[in-house]
């Protein structure tokens, strides 16, 4: 790739925080370093991966609002985690995490367990248990 061809697509997901380094060639074929603010195919692929995540988050939110799932499921999806990953943070089994995703078991959780989940999701216990805020 010639250094003039290094893509600079304005539409990207970098929030202006990042211009990645590329290796590109000069006119004689020798390599130089060039920054790139973004490239469409990469942005498309990345956006696609996030669409999957965001869909699952929305689905989880719906379920919580309908009372079919507990907020644990919502925050699990929001943090792109799996029950197994959450379980290793909380220090339990993934089966238990799955159970805690159900309102029946969620209501019976101890304060201490709630705190562990809240810490994992980087929110407070009050935020974790407040379903109203998901309705916004």
């Amino acid at each position: 790739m010639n250094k003039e061809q290094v893509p600079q697509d304005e539409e990207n997901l970098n929030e202006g925080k990042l211009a990645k380094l590329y290796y590109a060639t000069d006119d004689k074929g020798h390599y130089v370093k060039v920054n790139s603010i973004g490239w469409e195919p990469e942005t498309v692929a990345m956006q696609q991966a996030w669409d999957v995540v965001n869909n699952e988050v929305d689905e989880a939110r719906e379920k919580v609002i309908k009372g079919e799932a507990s907020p644990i499921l919502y925050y699990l999806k929001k943090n792109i985690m799996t029950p197994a990953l959450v379980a290793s943070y909380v220090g339990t089994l993934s089966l238990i995490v799955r159970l805690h995703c159900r309102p029946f078991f969620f209501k019976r959780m101890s304060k201490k367990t709630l705190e562990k989940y809240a810490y994992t999701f980087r929110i407070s216990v009050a935020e974790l248990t407040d379903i109203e805020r998901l309705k916004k």
Partner: protein
Amino acid sequence: MNFTHKQSAHCESGVISNLLRFHGLEFDEPMAFGIGSGLFFSYLPFIRINGIPATAYRIWPGQIFKRFSERIGIKLERKKFSNPKSAMLELDKMLDKGQPVGMLTSVFYLNYLPAAYRFHFNAHNIIVFGKQNGSYLVSDPVMEYTTEISHEDLVRARFAKGMPEPSGRMYYPVKLPGDYSLEQAIWKGIRQTSDHMTRIPMPIVGAKGMKYLAKRLRQWPEKLGERKAILWLGNVIRMQEEIGTGGAGFRFIHAAFLDQASAKLQNEKLFNLSQQLTKSGDSLRDFAYYAGRVCKNRKSDTKTFAELGDMLEACSVREQEIFSELYEVSKSK
């Protein structure tokens, strides 16, 4: 601390380059990447990440540093910890001594990165080189400038769970080479990369692996259905072009290495091969470009996937040739 940060494309080779510069050894990133034999290809359909087969254009994490240190003769002190407190204490101790420290982190907790990049990837290398107002000064190789991270975020990043667990791993050089043969190191790097790309008798790795992926990819629309086929294709693009690759799945970094090696060793042949690898990288970029269009239009038909498969197979053939030649050139050295 007199630490100079230079941006790089890949985190592991970038950390090597930045750490060694502090200790008075200048290795440009492509040199570190090439001597550490970073380039590779593997398609592992039996390993699924979020249900998508693992595709890698590089060797697995940690190997570049390991190979590079062996070839240049650097001894690293590596530590891992069972609890955050001792991990952070040890870090502070090293910083007090004026020693920048490399470490493994999870990008999910590095909030100076754009949100879009922050998936649970647990093998990202950064250097911490100081402390200021309770925050740590970070040299993240992929960033243009140095940045900061809070104590809490750094603890979370160093003790993230999942695969692989960083467990607070940190490292710094303790023994630097008295003398070493740069020439030998370069040839070893070239030899191992080309050996692994062409001579491993398994269909799923090296240049053959690209052919194998091409074959499987053609069948995706039929086998998986439209939605999944596009998702899997998007994943291939991400592995090839996302952050840390320097473009075209590390092919451009390696070509830059061959270019620099040709100048160091005054070997025209290597420059010639560098240019060929550049061309192969360009074809991979074309592949990503068309694949990106398929993903954008969300239309997967057998014909486009067959074409994409053909493009990838052409790359496989070309790389088989290039790396076979590189193997021949480096074999006797």
